[in-house]
């Protein structure tokens, strides 16, 4: 054996010993699974969630942890796939993790939530907005974000009350999140006296929208609401501009991230987006924002603060209820209120927030946004 391989071997042995040390140390920790997409087409949102949740874990640990124990974030990737989400939920069950902050996409949150309910695991989603998730009568499921039946009407009222387009089209991606929100928007605008000339679904992953755009152009559509995520809307915007179809688009928070500008470029200028209020602009969060900035992270993403709040609520509940039992914690969370970066939060019986506000922003080509007055 030559010197190089010997030293490599000793380094490897050292690494193994070190990692064993890590395991031994981890035994006294409270594990929180952070479940969301770290891969796949919507991993950007997963980043926001992971960033917020990790920051909460770090800051809570820096203040001495929870009842003398440190928190430990366990990152789980569901790629926003319903099937993979169930596999992830099973892993969480098998690893005997009691608390979950996730999942992110409504389509993957719903199937996973059933397992958590059955196994008595506390779940707080910082991002899944489909109303159905909290309508299953579950006791273990909470969310630190609003729902589509709040977001849809916000968008719908703005369209019917302020924009008043003569011809409105509503499109969606046929997924639980996108179609759900598109239907809410349709309901609200119809109540406001506007009947959409078009209500259609596109395919997730579709790249060619030219036929649809030609049809809307011919119909003289002036305004389009798109329920879905940014990859499809980005291409829609880009191909619309290319065909010389200059209708205005609006979308939910699923389209509001910098990738929409990377895909659509100048065509993303003037897009309207409903997003949770920008919690990073709240003066009460100045210290937290500074902590994110110090790590070169962007705290303005819509799911960063809700994810932070999710971890914090679990930690506060463990402290307040003086138990680590997830079922008792769920009761405690339902009965109490918590001071978090998204404001003072309290929950309804079904696990939804009592109050949550969506705000309309104008998106710019440089991926910044300004609130609409």
């Amino acid at each position, binding site marked *: 054996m030559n010197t190089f391989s010997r030293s490599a071997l000793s380094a490897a042995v050292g690494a193994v010993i070190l990692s064993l040390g890590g395991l031994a140390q981890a035994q006294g920790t409270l594990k929180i699974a952070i479940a969301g997409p770290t*891969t796949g*087409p919507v*991993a950007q949102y997963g980043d926001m969630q992971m960033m917020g949740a990790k920051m909460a874990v770090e800051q809570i640990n820096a203040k001495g942890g929870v009842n003398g124990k440190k928190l430990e974030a366990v990152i789980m990737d569901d790629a926003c796939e319903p099937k993979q989400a169930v596999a992830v939920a099973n892993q969480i069950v098998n690893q005997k993790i009691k608390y979950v902050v996730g999942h992110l996409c409504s389509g993957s949150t719903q199937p996973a939530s059933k397992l958590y309910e059955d196994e008595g695991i506390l779940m707080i989603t910082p991002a899944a907005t489909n109303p159905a998730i909290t309508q299953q009568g579950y006791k273990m499921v909470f969310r630190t974000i609003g729902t589509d039946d709040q977001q849809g009407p916000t968008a719908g009222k703005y369209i019917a009350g302020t924009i008043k387009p003569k011809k409105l089209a509503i*499109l969606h991606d046929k997924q639980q999140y996108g179609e759900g929100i598109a239907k809410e928007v349709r309901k609200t605008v119809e109540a406001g006296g506007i009947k959409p000339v078009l209500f*259609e679904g596109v395919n997730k*992953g579709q790249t060619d929208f030219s*036929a649809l755009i030609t049809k809307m152009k011919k119909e003289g559509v002036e305004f389009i609401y798109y329920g879905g995520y940014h990859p499809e809307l980005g291409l829609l915007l880009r191909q619309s501009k290319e*065909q010389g179809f200059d209708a205005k688009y609006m979308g939910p928070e699923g389209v509001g991230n910098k*990738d929409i500008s990377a895909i659509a470029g100048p065509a993303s200028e003037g897009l309207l987006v409903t997003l949770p209020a920008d919690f990073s602009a709240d003066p009460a969060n100045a210290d937290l924002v500074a902590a994110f900035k110090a790590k070169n992270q962007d705290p303005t993403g819509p799911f960063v603060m809700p994810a932070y709040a999710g971890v914090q609520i679990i930690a506060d509940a463990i402290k307040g209820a003086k138990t680590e039992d997830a079922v008792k914690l769920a009761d405690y969370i339902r009965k109490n209120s918590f001071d978090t970066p998204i404001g003072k939060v309290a929950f309804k019986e079904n696990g939804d927030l009592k109050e949550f506000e969506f705000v309309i922003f104008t998106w710019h080509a440089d991926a910044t946004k300004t609130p609409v007055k």
Partner: protein
Amino acid sequence: MSGFSLLEFIQQIINGLTLGSIYALIAIGYTMVYGIIGMINFAHGEIYMIGAYVGLLVITALGLFGVDSISAILLATLALSILVTGSYGWTVERLAYRPLRGSPRLVPLISAIGVSIFLQNYVQLGQGARDVSMQPVLTGGWRFGPEGDFQVYLSYMQVLIAVVTVAFMTGLTLFIGRSRMGRACRACSEDRAMANLLGIDTDRVIAVTFVLGAALAAVAGVLVSMYYGLVNPFIGFMAGLKAFTAAVLGGIGSIPGAMLGGVVLGLAESFASAYLQTEYKDVVAFGLLIGVLLVRPTGLLGRPDVEKV
């Protein structure tokens, strides 16, 4: 729907032909491999995806070096992409097909699916699972029709796609019809064992077939990254499925059939979007396939004696 408009109809034909050209380019890879070894290359969609990635990377790199002549970009990108994907095509054949020559038909089918999964994950690990996007390199186009009313729009990029597709199709047809290698390909497609007895190196012909198919998939990939500007490691699956449909529709094993199948499929999707609902476009596309196969089991231009999987 407010009436029929001829201008809109023309625009939908343009949309459909653009989409159809891309399908046709990928479909040729399926049909050529099937024509010669009687098997479907399920890794072909992934080869196309790699072509799209190489296209996007090269165009972005050329942009960094300040190259802005569109013909220089196109030539360099096509050349590099064909080179890279061609070698992938050759490798796929060498690793997943040649060692299994003479084994039951299902075995290479499964090894090809394995390669497909491998390539998808390999690109996902190497390039990340996220969408990679790029701003258009060629913008603008011509407008026809009355000012202020609906105008037909034909973009330079759509013309470029049509021109490049026709050029490569013509090249391929000449190669198959006139060259020595092309004659060997046709001989293998007629009867591989006999061609072998007559002194044709069939292994080499099969390798060339895979490389040619991959090269055309690369052309499709480059055009797609220039036109849509968005790629991710998963685009190969759906594109492969659509192109395979186009190949079967046109008559698998027949090269003109693949071209026709691609165009028919593109037009069908475009019209389904235009005159029905967008959500029905795949239903119409695959429904058309079933319909054609019921009436003509060998596809539009297929020969009746070709055996089906």
